[in-house]
């Protein structure tokens, strides 16, 4: 059942990131982390509408995307801890998650840099006639980078099966979108490049799921060129790190209130039967406890790993 699937995925992601935030101060994760808390429903809804072999690309803020795409929780946490059992043997950390087994094909610490990779992957699928779809996730800051325009232009030109998902949380680090963009309308920018665009002003997981399913079906059939979704959302925590940062003053807490009140997790929870919900939560909590223990107990990579995988 859809509601259950959405809730399970969203609950897992929210709780994992809350736990990551909780353990962070004890220095078990010696690396920057960018949390998605508050905006996870976008990844969850979109990925639930994808087939297992559809492909996703993300940014450094990709814990939610990775887990939503069916990523391995143990492997991700071990990666954050820098352990040998991590999805990239500890070499990637939080910012560069990639896992071919779930067709998450990359994330980068350099803003916007994976957008053309999604286009290129889609080009390859089109060349080979494979009916798979590629989704590129990025923030509204990435839209300012030249590579955004270059990539969308090419995707439109070639009518490639790409869904661009802009998670617009209104800020790039501490700078609001209006201070960076004369036209703070990502859909209009995409349309000017020949990419059809749709705006989602609220974070409604079910609605986003249904619309994604429709668009993905069309993309898969080759019936249309690329599409962009601009999904408005809000980042509840600081840009990098585990804390809330309203006290610092670059954004008022009042701005967050409507988003906190409309929390997608709570919205889905209200729709579920309480016993069913409890069962999901208990299962997920056990899974999370196990994964953190696994990350904690896993060995560090050996010194010889410093040079492995440098070349094929």
């Amino acid at each position, binding site marked *: 059942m859809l509601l259950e699937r959405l809730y399970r995925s969203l609950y897992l992601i929210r709780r994992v990131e809350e736990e990551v935030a909780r353990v962070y101060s004890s220095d078990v994760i010696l690396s920057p982390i960018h949390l998605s808390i508050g905006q996870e429903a976008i990844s969850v809804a979109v990925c639930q509408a994808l087939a297992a072999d559809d492909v996703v690309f993300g940014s450094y803020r990709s814990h939610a995307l990775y887990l939503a795409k069916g990523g391995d929780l143990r492997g991700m946490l071990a990666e954050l801890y820098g352990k040998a059992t991590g999805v990239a043997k500890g070499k990637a950390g939080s910012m560069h998650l990639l896992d071919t087994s779930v067709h998450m094909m990359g994330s980068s610490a350099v803003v916007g840099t994976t957008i053309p990779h999604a286009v290129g992957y889609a080009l390859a699928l089109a060349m080979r006639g494979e009916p798979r779809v590629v989704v590129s996730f990025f923030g509204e800051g*990435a839209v300012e980078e030249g590579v955004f325009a270059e990539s969308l232009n090419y995707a439109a030109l070639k009518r490639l099966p790409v869904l661009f998902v802009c998670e617009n949380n209104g800020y790039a680090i501490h700078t609001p979108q209006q201070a960076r963009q004369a036209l703070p309308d990502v859909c209009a920018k995409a349309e000017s490049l020949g990419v059809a665009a749709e705006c989602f002003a609220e974070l409604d997981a079910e609605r986003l799921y249904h619309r994604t399913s429709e668009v993905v079906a069309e993309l898969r059939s080759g019936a249309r060129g690329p599409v962009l979704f601009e999904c408005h959302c809000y980042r509840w925590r600081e840009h990098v790190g585990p804390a809330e940062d309203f006290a610092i003053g670059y954004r008022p807490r009042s701005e967050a209130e409507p988003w906190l009140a409309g929390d997608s997790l709570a919205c889905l929870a209200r729709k579920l039967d309480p016993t069913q919900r409890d069962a999901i939560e208990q299962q997920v909590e056990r899974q999370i406890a196990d994964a953190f223990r696994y990350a904690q107990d896993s060995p560090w990579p050996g010194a010889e790993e410093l040079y492995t995988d440098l070349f094929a």
Partner: protein
Amino acid sequence: MERTLTFSEALHEATAQEMRRDPRVFVLGQGIDDFKGFYGTTKGLVEEFGRDRILDTPLAEDGMTGVAIGAAMAGMRPIQTHIRMDFMLLAMNQIVNIAAKARYMYGGQVSVPLVVRGVIGRSWGQGAQHSQGLHAFFMHVPGLRVVAPTTPYDGKGLLLQSIRSDDPVIFIEHRMVHFQRGHVPEGDYTVPFGQARVLAPGRDVTLVGVSHAVVECMRARASLVEVGIEAEVIDPVSLSPMDFDTLAASVRRTGHLVVVDSSWAFCGASAEIVAGIAERLGTTNGFRFVRMGFAPTVCPTTKPLERLFYPDAADIAEQACRLLRGAASDWRPARIEAPEILEFRGPF
């Protein structure tokens, strides 16, 4: 009493003083006006100089570098900032093809008095894309000045020098250098390009460190005293032009050279330093040398591998000792802690 500042305070002072003195100077960069103030170096400047001179920019490294170049051609003196040096790669075309070449290829009709500040983001698991020292890329290109000061004194004096220069300057700051504290005069002074600084004298071996590596060389020097080795430590400060004369004179006396870069050795600044000294000393006056730098691999995020990736003060001291006493030397100094690395806490 001696007045001391941290390196980042010294850059702040230089910027504010020069903006007061010269209305053509302005700063542009992502988040430059936020509460963190670019590692404290631009804190409060927006209050004093307003948003017309402290410009927060979109995420558009390539375009904004071109904008800065255009403003510089129009007679302004922009200072552009990058919180990670890695992001300067997105602006390579503007820096290398335009900024470096404009004056020459237009027959001296224009100049590009632009300063580009790039921070090397080491520490706390910065990983592959947030830790690179890319100075050698820029040193390769004629028409660019490349500096990497480490003392607060040089930081202030060279930033003033860079802003006043009519040529484009790549100004490299290591995140761990920001915490260095030292004497900084209050007044106006400049440090010239192309002048190395002898940080400590010694007769046995010359230690040359680029950027943060020179801080580690100073620590290595202190521990080498234990085994009776006196090291001379030199900070090139300016990487292009490079003060080979000071470096060569030192090596002529010591006969031994350890070059430690805050980057990879292969095709890097250390290769150039060794070659430049060899050219000056000639083949008759053979000297022995060793190069050190990042491990020749991609920077891993995980702590144990990150520790192996970066040479530390103990590694430097050990290498210097082997260079003098031969490979059989089994002296290994006790771990020499770098407080700025030890105390650094994330998330940033």
